[in-house]
């Protein structure tokens, strides 16, 4: 690197009159630091764009008993209830207050891999396997399609699915925002075809009170 050499004048070969003072500044640490700073700036600009999770809600209708709403088959309906403590409760079917004897039982679970995800994968086995196989084919290179084509194909598979669960997500006032984001995330991870966020009914709030803690 930069050398500052102070030369003594009148140096004759063989006999040196005075010692040659040469001051050399070793600039290696400076280069190291600059290298670090550049890497830092290069990486931090890449991370600054925030990621978003897009959710689309259905239009709010004033009429709760919407005649146009299609009938949801009872055994495909999966109701997920979110409450305090990051707990997840679910039940299958419809909780009809007029039929207290047929009231379904709440099952307690959580957000871990063995929790709600396991149950969702079991219920959505066929659709999930279909989509996972399609994605594998793209990764291994057996199917070569553009990203948008792949997205549309997956959307089509979800639309045509007839066996997967229809999930209704309900949160009471003690749930946290993170719980809602996590459950919608699980919908994406488990390739659930149709889900909706709705208000919990008074019956369900009652069920939560008597649910296993």
């Amino acid at each position, binding site marked *: 690197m930069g050398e500052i050499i102070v030369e003594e004048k009148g140096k004759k070969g063989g006999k040196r009159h005075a010692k040659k003072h040469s001051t050399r500044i070793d600039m290696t640490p400076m280069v190291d630091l600059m290298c670090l700073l550049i890497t830092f700036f290069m990486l931090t*600009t890449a991370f600054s764009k925030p990621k978003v999770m897009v959710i689309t809600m259905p239009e709010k209708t004033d009429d709760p008993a919407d005649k146009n709403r299609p009938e949801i088959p009872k055994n495909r309906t999966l109701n997920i209830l979110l409450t305090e403590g990051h707990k997840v409760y679910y039940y299958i079917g419809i909780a009809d207050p007029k039929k207290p004897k047929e009231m379904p039982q709440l099952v307690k679970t959580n957000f871990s891999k063995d929790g709600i995800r396991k149950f969702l994968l079991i219920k959505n086995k066929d659709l999930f396997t279909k989509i996972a196989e399609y994605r594998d084919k793209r990764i291994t290179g057996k199917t070569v399609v553009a990203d948008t084509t792949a997205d549309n194909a997956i959307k089509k598979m979800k639309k045509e699915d007839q066996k997967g669960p229809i999930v209704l997500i309900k949160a009471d006032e003690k749930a946290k925002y993170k719980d809602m984001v996590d459950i919608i*995330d699980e919908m994406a991870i488990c390739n659930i075809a149709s889900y909706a966020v709705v208000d919990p009914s008074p019956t369900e709030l009652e069920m939560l009170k008597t649910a296993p803690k």
Partner: protein
Amino acid sequence: MPKIKQPARSPHIDMTPMVDLFSLLLTFFMLTTSFRPQEAAPIETPSSVSEKQAPDNDIMTIYIAKDGKVFFNIDNGRDTSTHFREKLLQKMAEQYKLTFTPKELDKFSKMAGFGMPIKNLKAWINATEPKVRDKFQEGIPMDSIDNQLAWWVRMARLTNLSAEVAIKGDAETDYTKVKKIMDLLQDNKVNKFNLVTNLQKDEASVKDIPK
């Protein structure tokens, strides 16, 4: 010819050009990147597997802090001709019967997120000390008598018809507060929300399905 004996010298690589390049690159990055605008309240977003990126412009952001305080931000549009922030402030000023000088409008268009009742907005724009400025940030009122957030959203949509809505909420915020804001947005015909999350990869595979 006698053999020319050269004394053993350690190799010296002249690194001047490398230092030049490094300083050039460093200056480039320092100038092209801009600091993230100071956010009014620290918000830790929840994590999600979504890899979609938020659009840079034509987006309005509603921040919800842990205690439920609401802040609002909107960008100026794709180029310098649109002046969305100025137009938005003018519309709000008409609605609430306030006046802003052109200098205040100009200052506002360069600022970022804010959260205060609109009557304090003038004082916030004119405050010069960051500490004084931060004291104003108490959240946008959302009560039923005077739902200022609803007006901000409504006017922002009128100013920029193609603006998308992003919601940046803290993970530990009560869900009811977020729901209130989503209901407000749905009342204003916004049904698509971008929830700001941080990326955390997680996936399930066919092996995870129990037999």
